[in-house]
């Protein structure tokens, strides 16, 4: 019968494993604080580096700030001058060439028609949606002789509607109801007619 007697006290017993629990605790007690210290030092160094970068960039910013202020002032001046220029230019772009209109009228009036009175107005009116607009109106009063007087007036009205160079500006040309009638002047021949043609133009908003 084999008998094995263990004479080693419990306190004297050692682990047979190459990695002992105590060893791990000892190593951890050194490594963990070292890692924490390393992280803190690394963080501090990082803070220092970033602080230095911030200072450099702030110095750069204080230099550029003056240049930027000048640039912003210049940009505002451009915006202001552009607005003034647009306002002035709108006077040119929205005006009607009256000389061209009068010359065109001279050409388009049929031979049997005589103009007695011509009124043209170009008013600045205010529209809630468009602002200040140019409102143009042309009124022609005239006489037409002969049995084709009505045809002549209608021909003139049609020509006004399609007046070259004004097709985009004349909105309508029409003889209002009752505006074509016999001439009641004492010395007027029976075949003479008086008429009125009213032309309206498209409104052009002023800047």
């Amino acid at each position, binding site marked *: 019968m084999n008998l094995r007697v263990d004479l080693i006290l419990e306190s004297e017993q050692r682990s047979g494993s190459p990695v002992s629990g105590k060893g791990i605790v000892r190593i951890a007690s050194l490594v963990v604080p070292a890692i924490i210290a390393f992280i803190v030092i690394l*963080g501090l160094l990082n803070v220092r580096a970033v602080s230095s970068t911030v200072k450099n960039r702030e110095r750069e910013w204080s230099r550029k700030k003056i240049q930027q202020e000048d640039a912003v002032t210049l940009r505002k001046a451009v915006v202001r001058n552009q607005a003034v220029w647009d306002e002035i230019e709108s006077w*040119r772009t929205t005006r009607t060439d009256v000389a061209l209109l009068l010359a065109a009228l001279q050409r388009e009036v049929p031979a049997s028609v005589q103009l007695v009175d011509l009124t043209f107005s170009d008013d600045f009116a*205010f529209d809630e949606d468009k*602002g200040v607009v140019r409102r143009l109106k042309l009124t022609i009063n005239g006489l037409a002789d002969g049995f084709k007087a009505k045809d002549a007036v209608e021909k003139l009205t049609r020509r006004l509607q399609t007046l070259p160079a004004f097709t985009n500006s004349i909105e309508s040309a029409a003889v209002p109801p009752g505006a074509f009638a016999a001439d009641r002047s004492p010395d007027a021949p029976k075949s003479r007619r008086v008429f009125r043609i009213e032309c309206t133009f498209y409104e052009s908003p002023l800047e």
Partner: protein
Amino acid sequence: MKLPEDKKQRVQVIILICMGIVAVLYVVLHAGIIPVTKGLENRKKKLSIVEDKIEKANRDIMQSKRHTVRNADLESKLVNASMAHLLQHEVGNFLLPAAHHIQKLVEESGIAKHSILGMGPLQLRQWNKRKNERTVMSYSVRVTVECAYSNLVLFADRMLADNPYVSFSGLRISAQKTQPEKHKMVLDIRWPIWIDLDAYDAYSQMAAQRAAEESNPEEDG
């Protein structure tokens, strides 16, 4: 250091050690790691803000060259418009220069008789959707003439060709039975004028300054 032999005491010591470790970790975390991390975050935030500002400044500065050219062009156009096309005034009087100008064109157009009446300035209403305050208003004169239709066409053509901003705000042509070849005409002529009369001086000074710079380009660098 040896742990006590007694199991109960050993457990107590181990718990104490654990509590100590937790306390130390807490202190390290709150006194070391968190402040460092927060400090780093704050500085990075600050850096990001400053870099954004620099980037914006760089963009603005980059556009300066283009804006300088654009502004010079606009100023040049405004100077030209102010001096050549907006109606000038003589000590606040706009009728005299207008009458002088009309007199010249009337003569050139072969119109013998004319009379001029000042109708005064008219300030245009400010539209609430308009971003800027108005800078120009209108000044009108009424010209009464007796001439042939062709003379009027010639006069209107010269008037409009002479100034791209002038317009006829009203026109009335009436035939005369006694003189069929001559019509009675009433013309309302409208110019833009600066609302602020000082603008005339400002633009003429700008023109003088530009002329001086052009004659001495080396002084300007």
